[in-house]
């Protein structure tokens, strides 16, 4: 009985990657610098890239994907998302992004909610997204909980790394959660970090004796230990320039913090400080409205100016972002290129733009074997029918760990059911 079970499990888990795959003849944008190889070849074996370049022989027995007239890029990585933890945002029962009614905060761990069958996974995979940072949004505390890294593969086990970062809300949202002011939010933050340090010194004593009056739960303090000690990143949501500067100061008291800013719409006003602190930024390049008082200086030049200053920027979808979806990452990146043409605007080169949705998110989250097309990296490769940043282009093949992924989703099924119009012999619900 037990043995049967194990065998079955092994079958399911076994990678279907034994094959060697060669993608030939395409325009290969490697995301290494601005490197583009015309008529290039990418070879994958056992899920890893074994060769990238021109004039590379195709190994005998390889499955060949003809990419002539097409473009080849690394799989896209969204530097933030709620993929696999939300199906329909406005239907609470399908949405594990945040919890307002819980006594816990920092200890919340989205990896326990990852659903590999959530339909947004296939829908976004069809847009070329192969990996995602997936994370919580703020609940009732400034500590939102811990996010994870997932694969978008059509596979049972898509959780790659749990508890990769802690989401911390400061700025206007953090102030609201903390009771109504920025100073209140900062006290919550410093108290949480101090409690984590105290917990780390003596976990057993944390809930006993005089320590009982702690303002945070033992589990939350325990979760923050990894943040204070730099084993988990601190993803801090702030927008206003003054809030950004305040966050950067944190490392003088907590030197091991691995800070990542998310939002940072006014980042360009203090780009030199962010760059000097070597703190990366996750944002989108199309925010240009003064839609809150903390985002008055929003501009589509933010990403260009940050990167010009040396800040590493990855694009990601945070807090809904005006209907943004990870499958539209190329649209965001392409628009960052367009901004360079605007007199007085600062945009990106195409190579930089591609990096913001491939190499940079990988670098920000320490995914060393993802984000570029280089020998030894995981076989996450997308073949596009045109310039990957163009609105009219789409993937024609998506490979994850060297495995060609199905090019269908719930949306393509709906399309196919309705493409021929009204019912004839039988109701449409009988169409496949």
């Amino acid at each position: 009985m037990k043995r049967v079970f194990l065998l079955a499990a092994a079958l399911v888990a076994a990678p279907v990657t034994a094959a060697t795959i060669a993608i030939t003849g395409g325009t290969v944008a490697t995301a290494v610098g601005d490197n583009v190889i015309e008529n290039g070849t990418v070879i994958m074996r056992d899920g890893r890239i074994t060769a990238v370049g021109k004039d590379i022989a195709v190994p005998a027995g390889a499955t060949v994907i003809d990419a002539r007239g097409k473009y080849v890029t690394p799989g896209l990585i969204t530097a933030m998302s709620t993929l696999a933890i939300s199906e329909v945002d406005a239907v609470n029962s399908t949405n594990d992004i945040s919890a307002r009614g819980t006594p816990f905060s920092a200890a919340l761990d989205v990896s326990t909610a990852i659903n590999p069958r959530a339909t947004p996974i296939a829908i976004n995979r069809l847009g070329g997204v192969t990996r995602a940072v997936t994370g919580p949004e703020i609940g009732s505390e400034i500590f939102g909980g811990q996010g994870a890294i997932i694969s978008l593969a059509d596979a049972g086990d898509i959780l790659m790394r749990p508890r990769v970062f802690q989401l911390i809300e400061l700025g206007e949202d953090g102030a609201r959660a903390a009771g109504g002011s920025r100073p209140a939010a900062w006290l919550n933050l410093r108290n949480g970090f101090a409690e984590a340090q105290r917990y780390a010194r003596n976990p057993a004593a944390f809930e006993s004796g005089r320590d009982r009056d702690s303002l945070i739960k033992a589990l939350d303090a325990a979760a923050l230990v990894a943040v204070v000690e730099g084993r988990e990143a601190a993803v801090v949501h702030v927008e206003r320039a003054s809030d950004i500067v305040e966050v950067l100061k944190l490392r003088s008291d907590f030197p091991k913090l691995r800070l990542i800013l998310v939002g940072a719409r006014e980042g360009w006003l203090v780009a030199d400080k962010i760059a000097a602190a070597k703190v990366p930024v996750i944002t989108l390049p199309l925010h240009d409205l003064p839609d809150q008082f903390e985002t008055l200086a929003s501009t589509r030049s933010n990403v260009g100016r940050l990167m010009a200053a040396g800040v590493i920027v990855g694009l990601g979808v945070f807090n809904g972002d005006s209907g943004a979806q990870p499958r539209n990452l190329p649209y965001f990146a392409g628009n960052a290129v367009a901004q360079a043409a605007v007199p007085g605007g600062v945009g990106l080169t195409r190579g930089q733009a591609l990096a913001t949705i491939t190499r940079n998110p990988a670098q920000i989250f320490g995914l060393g074997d993802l984000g570029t097309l280089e020998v030894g990296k995981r076989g996450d490769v997308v073949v596009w029918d045109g310039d990957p940043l163009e609105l009219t282009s789409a993937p024609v093949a998506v490979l994850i760990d060297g495995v060609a992924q199905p090019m269908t989703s719930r949306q393509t099924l709906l399309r196919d059911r309705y493409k021929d119009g009204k019912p004839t012999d039988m109701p449409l619900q009988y169409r496949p």
Partner: protein
Amino acid sequence: MRRSVLFALLGLSACATAPKPPPPAIANSKPPEVVAIPLDPYPSTYRAYPGVTTVIRNAVIYDGTGRKLAPGAVRLENGVVAEIGATVAVPAGATVIDAQGKYVTPGVIDIHSHLGDYPSPAVEANSDGNEATSPARPEVWAEHSIWPQDAGFARALAGGVTTMHVLPGSANLFGGRGVTLKNVYGRTAQDMKFPGAAYSLKMACGENPKRVYGSKGQMPQTRMGNIAYARQVWSDAVEYKRRWDDYTKRARLGTAKPTDAPRRDLAKDTLMGVLNGEILVENHCYRADEMANVIAMSHEFGYKVTAFHHAVESYKIADLLKAEGICSAMWADWYGFKMESYDGIRENIALVDRAGACAIVHSDDPNGIQRLNQEAAKAMAAGNRMGMGITPEHAWTWLSLNPAKGLGIDKRTGSLEVGKMADVVLWNANPFSVYARPERVWIDGALIYDWADPNRRPVADFELGQPGAGDPK
């Protein structure tokens, strides 16, 4: 000259309750006194800004009717399109723009915007889009919420939007009147009103009204409650109209005194305007089955739905929408954020268009309004991957002429045809490319945006003195 044209157009939009020439009456008697509902108590004070005769030539033109001119040239003169063709005459003194490698289109028209009534900054004090105090509030008018210092107007202009329709929100079954604006800043909302454009009535079906009122323990709490509530409102409106029609008829015959006029009900004034065919119905609705319910309701009470908005399931009933002559105003790919948007697909716009129904790309969003051309590009590409062969010049109809039809202004703007308003965008590249941006925008022939000239880039009062003010966004 221009003013008299505007006044003539205003006259055309006159409500049927206006006095018509009295019937043949007894000689020498005074015409009877007829109480009428004022047609336009908050008239437009918009005036076109001065322009110069401008020729744009050697461009690729998508003219908005589905035609492409390459090379194409257009002459803007006296506020209108004076000539369009492969070449056009160049009058002495005209400004000539050589647009080699560039594109020219009609200005983008967004049929669904909340700029001004949900302005930036989106603080509670500025939240003026939903009068969510009753499921039926046809008496409120979006224009009375519009704050003309919304920075969003400037951003939309930089995205090539020359006309927009600002609607109340969708909390109510009957949200109130929408208003069409020229995207030219004014000191007042009236300064921005598109002269002579019809009003709309914003309606909503589905989740929003039943959630907003159901959660208060009020009707509607269900979709059947939505329809039942709306039917009663329409039924009451029909009765109101009957009383006004009867009074007006009798008054014209001299058999009714002014004191016999029915008591005015501002809510029902709007509904009567719909029943008289003077006010358009712009109906927020996601699901196909609910759109069908609304269509049946419109037949029951004798009004016309001009457009369904959001309409993420229009592809399921494109044949019905074609038969009914109802437009669908849609996103390219928003879906899944609420249950009724769960079945959205990227091919929606293309499938509606293929069925011969009126397809419109809309935004409902202060950020999305800035790149409606890009949404159209995505929708076109999705259709073409199904083998539809949609050309860019055809897809442009989704951005200007079709929304103009959905607002009843298609005889005046929405395409580059001789005599129409010179609402024009010059793009630095193909506007269906992600790399394209508007370089210049003309509205009624006035150069109202120039990406290279800070004096032609508006800055709303709110942004003055704030960080980032005047930065080319």
